[in-house]
């Protein structure tokens, strides 16, 4: 066990714990904080995957944008909306667990059955010592091979922005 491994373990635990908290906690704020913890954990995992750029983008987009947006929505709605606790019945909990397990099982089975043979086994790391996908390379990828998805995602974001603006205007018109 060296320091790196300890940090890695902490990151993994933070991710798992955060995810569990995001699902199980009674208050929506705690759920959000759990989500943030999980996102930070994943950002840490990205660093261990040797991609600091990805890690920073993870924090920037997920924590800086998505979670903040959710936080904003919670703050706007929350104070007026304290009626139901996030806890539901035990029955529902069991049902959720069941649904998740079943869907997970079918999903894994599906993947295994379809791609089972072609699923790569993972190259031992020692054989590929210099994994260095730099920011530049990702950028180059976006403008060469992946230009279509990139444009599509840009379109999606634009549409989303327009949609959000429309929704905002619509709600203002209602008032």
């Amino acid at each position, binding site marked *: 066990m060296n320091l790196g491994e300890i940090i890695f373990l902490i990151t993994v635990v933070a991710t798992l714990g955060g995810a569990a908290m995001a699902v199980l906690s009674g208050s929506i704020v705690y759920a959000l904080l759990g989500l943030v913890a999980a996102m930070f954990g994943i950002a840490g995992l990205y660093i261990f995957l040797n991609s600091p750029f990805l890690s920073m983008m993870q924090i920037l987009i997920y924590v800086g944008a998505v979670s903040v947006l959710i936080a904003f929505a919670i703050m*706007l709605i929350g*104070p*007026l*909306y304290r009626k139901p606790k996030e806890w539901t019945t035990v029955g529902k909990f069991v049902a959720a667990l069941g649904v998740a397990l079943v869907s997970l099982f079918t999903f894994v089975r599906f993947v295994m059955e379809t791609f089972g043979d072609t699923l790569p086994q993972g190259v031992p790391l020692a054989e590929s010592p210099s994994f260095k996908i730099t920011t530049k390379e990702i950028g180059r990828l976006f403008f060469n091979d992946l230009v279509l998805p990139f444009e599509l995602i840009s379109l999606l974001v634009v549409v989303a922005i327009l949609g959000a603006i429309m929704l905002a205007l619509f709600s203002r018109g209602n008032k």
Partner: protein
Amino acid sequence: MVERIKAELGATLKETPVGEADYRERGYHLFAEVASADLLNVARFFDERGFYLAALICVDYKEYLELVYIFSNHASLCKVKITLKIDPAKPVAPTISTVFDCAYWHEREIREFFGVSFDGHPNMTYLFLHEGIDFYPLRKEKIPVSDEDKKALGAFRPGEGEDTFFVNLGPQHPSTHGVLRVVLKMDGEYIEDAQPVLGYLHRMHEKMAENRSYLQFLPNTGRMDYLGPMAFNLGYVTAVERLCGIPVPDRANYVRVILTELNRLSSHLMWLGAYLADLGALTPFLFVFDDREEINDILEPVTGSRLTYCYFRFGGLYNDVDDAFVAGTRAFIERLRSRFSLYEKLVGGNVIFTNRTRGIGVITKERARKQAVSGPVLRGAGIPMDIRKSEPCAAYGEMDFDVPVGTRGDALDMYQVRIREMENALNIIEQALARLPEGPIMTEKAPRKLKPPKGDLYHTVETPRGELGIYIVSDESDKPYRMKWRVPSFSNLMIFPELAKGNLLADAVAILGSLDLVIPEIDR
């Protein structure tokens, strides 16, 4: 005008006669006693003719309670006193809050102080008092509050109801300038409803007036409006002088004008600073205090105190002003004139300030009349009404000044009106200084013990915040039988809920600031 109103009112009332009073003695032109059935008609009558409800007063004459409605007009000087007698055993009167919005608050006040309940009033709950008080304070006899009444009075409970988000602005809050409490019902950052709760500084001035001789009450006036105590002193002193017919020497009158205007300056400066502090800029607050200290340096050697002046006396002044005062005032005028450009740069021209104040808290002329706002707020709304012009006391009649009015009626207009009023005040002081006559400062005819003749008087003066009305009922003793203070801040505050509605919290703070409230004056 007076004649016409008399004729028309007589035609409306039919049965009861309309009397004509000596305006110089009584402060109103016409009076009439109406039956409670007629009251609403009379209110509508005045509403149609553009009158506003200047004051609503209750007097306990032991055998009966009397409600006194003072109607007044912005355009021309015509004041009408309408009285309504009610049975003290079963005090009920019809409400006129459906006609004049400001009566809503006055009637609540009378409800808790006299126990008169108003038929048709939507909200008869405690405004000033708290539930620990078990009698009606201003009744001459100690009438206990029955348990039912107590329950009814205390019914107002902010915070009840689901899905609402209440914010208590105050009683301890930096932007309420004291201990005003406003219960805001919020929708996010927007205000759905605002409900002022008063009385955190109710110091029983009106009750005290009944326990003290006329002279002994004098120090109280300075403590009602601590920012403009001179104007309150002036109002009280001139009211009593009018009641007793005491002449005042010329020099005293001029000095009164100078001091009152200096005090108006310091009050407006204080408002400017506090307003900017509300908007988030602290430095102007300290700058205006520099100027205020200069004013204090002038006033303190004359009056002997820095804040709650008690300087005017019945028939004159406490002591004379000297040459140092005149020189100091002249120097101060020069100084303040140059400071105005600084304030213009720092505040008035600042794009953040103008954007924050433009278009918020717009008061229309109609609403201003219905809510009976007065002073700079009224003038900001566009009605050129200044009691210094319309009913001049002291030497104001000889002064030449204009009445600044706003065009939009928003908070920025209030700012501009007040700034121009400060310039006006400087002009008035200059004129008064130039004409300051020599002579005695105290009349020789002042009686040692004041015992005004029987009767009542409604006397108004213009304080820095607006129309101060003093209603005194004298029963020939050395103590007033009843003294009611119609204070400007109280009526100015009343318009706040409807101004705040639908605005942002930040705007509400700005609007509250633009009204220039002084809480002890509201609470009395």
